[in-house]
């Protein structure tokens, strides 16, 4: 009974069209979990996707952009093909996103926090996804599962943050 619903505050300080961060190091408390998001030396990179794992190569002119904000605040932008899931994209680029159930919506290890500007453009989560989000850590109002979101033109340029977990889990977390 200790689920937190927090209006994702991490996005409020995001400004500018390309999302380059000018803020200094911030740490935000989401529930009891500290998210250290924006170190001043945040790296920002755009990678052209060649061949990663089983990711498809996007057709020229049809590249869709997605930006991940990592646990250390670094940002990674990738150009990907329509239909790829966020989990596959993250794993194809060796980002720290786990898919314990292999992307079958049976766990919440691929929890992402979606930029509210893009959240409403996503198809609604199913009951099955919501059942798993119930168990996610640091849940926010724009939380989703990375395995359930497929890239489409509607969300070209989407930005998602990987929730940081900076403390140990103990029995009291579940009581």
């Amino acid at each position: 009974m200790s689920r937190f619903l927090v209006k994702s505050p991490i996005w409020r300080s995001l400004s500018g069209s390309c999302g380059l961060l000018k803020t200094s190091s911030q740490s935000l408390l989401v529930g009891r979990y500290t998210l250290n998001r924006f170190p001043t030396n945040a790296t920002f990179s755009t990678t052209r996707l060649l061949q990663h794992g089983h990711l498809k190569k996007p057709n020229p002119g049809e590249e869709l952009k997605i930006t991940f904000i990592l646990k250390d605040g670094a940002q990674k932008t990738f150009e990907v093909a329509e239909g790829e899931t966020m989990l596959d994209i993250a794993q194809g680029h060796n980002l720290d996103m786990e898919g314990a159930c292999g992307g079958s919506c049976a766990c919440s290890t691929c929890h992402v926090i979606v930029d509210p500007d893009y959240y409403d453009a996503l198809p609604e989560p199913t009951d099955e996804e919501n059942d798993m989000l119930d168990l996610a850590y640091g849940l926010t109002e724009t939380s989703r599962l990375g395995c359930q979101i497929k890239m489409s033109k509607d969300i070209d340029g989407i930005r998602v943050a990987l929730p940081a977990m900076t403390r140990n889990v103990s029995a009291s977390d579940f009581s």
Partner: protein
Amino acid sequence: MMNIRTLTTNIPRKRVSIIGSGPSGFYTAYHLLKKSKIPLHVTIWEKLPVPFGLSRYGVAPDHPEVKNCEETFTQCAEENIQNNGLHKFEFIGGITIGEQISLQKLISEQDAVILSYGSSGEHKLNIPGESDTKGVFTSREFVSWYNGHPDYALNPKFMDFDWSHVSKVGIIGNGNVALDISRVLLSNKIDEIWKKTDINPVAISLLQKAPISNVKIIGRRDFIHSKFTNKELRELWALERYGIRGSISSEFFDVSKFSSINDRALKRRIEICSEYMKDFSERTKASYKKYEPLELTLDGSTRTWELDYLKAPIKIDKDANGNIKQLTVRNQLLTDENKLVDDTSKSDIVYGLDLLITSIGYAGKPMKEFSSLNIKFNKDRVITKDNRVLSTSDVAFPRLYATGWIQSGSQGVIVSTMMNAFNVADTVIADLSKNDSTTNSQPIDVTNIPHTTWKDWEEINKRELDKGKQSGKPREKFLTSDSMYKHN
């Protein structure tokens, strides 16, 4: 030119031993091998000949997707099993730390030791008839039986029990294990669910003899304090499409009393129950209208389950043959301080039962050496501070860590186990990095002890997959340790 093999085999790797190969142990190994910049030799010790603990022997057979973490573990093992990279991984099965090899030896000869052996015991009701009545099983033995665990798969306690008379079932406890067991029992005759799973074939053929009519899931507290998660609850309700119908008495489920609840998961739990208890035509959300429910099962019988609350089991009575006859329960009240007290205004209730399964939680057990080593253990778990195991005088025990259910208690789903394991692995890496000098750690000699290696597991796995393929299943498990060693 020096080849890579010569280069890397000469790296003095720090040695880390992990005790237990379930999700917590394997996720710890995975994170260590992925993140450590100092060369590691990680050994996972497993008492069974085969890996994966509760993923293999705890997760319900109709939840194969939850076992997909095994793919991550397998990939991690394969990448590090050869001696040609920075790290080296080793799996040693069939050896119990504390028996064939002492914990003391590991602690003194390794650079780090991580306890991740889970909860090997379980809580008891401590009521008359609990341990000497036929037809009363613990959730641990029941789940281990249908999952083909070698200690239970062919256990006479199950094999000799007369399943053909099991109609009324009681389950004490309402966590996800209780719901898994309810689902297995209620859907025992629905072949399309089980024929494509790796359920113990001996167990399912016996279970299919049971003409189940009712399963009562009995909790001591109220609906709000139910332990199950929404996914498992939804699955149970969804059995209505097979004519398996659920209910909760209005005494325990009154939506008007829940209006002040704001907790997300709890609100959704209430919605699931109230939607499924409506007539099909009155349901509002599409997800509750996917399949029209059947009033009776396909063989024309009534089959129901119910969530029962505020009852404490008092005693179990048996018939002349020693089989369970009935369970007596006492009504409970929940005080404003959230304490349970007997409700003396009502008399005890007797439930006639043919099968009772107690599912009130797994409990961690201390290893024998804990007392001589002064390792702190309390309330079913090893006591840690910042991931390091504490001594009885509350000092961090050198080089000893704990993760998973032996550290946290037997609660939480795979995400919490995984995060806990990553966190502990980070602490181990940080501690190992502090002291860069070469260590006096040494390989543990197991040449004279029968054991399995990762290569043995690969062969066992291949045989199980092949056998499964022949009968259209994902896998057919070996049911005894002996057959695992022989791979046949």
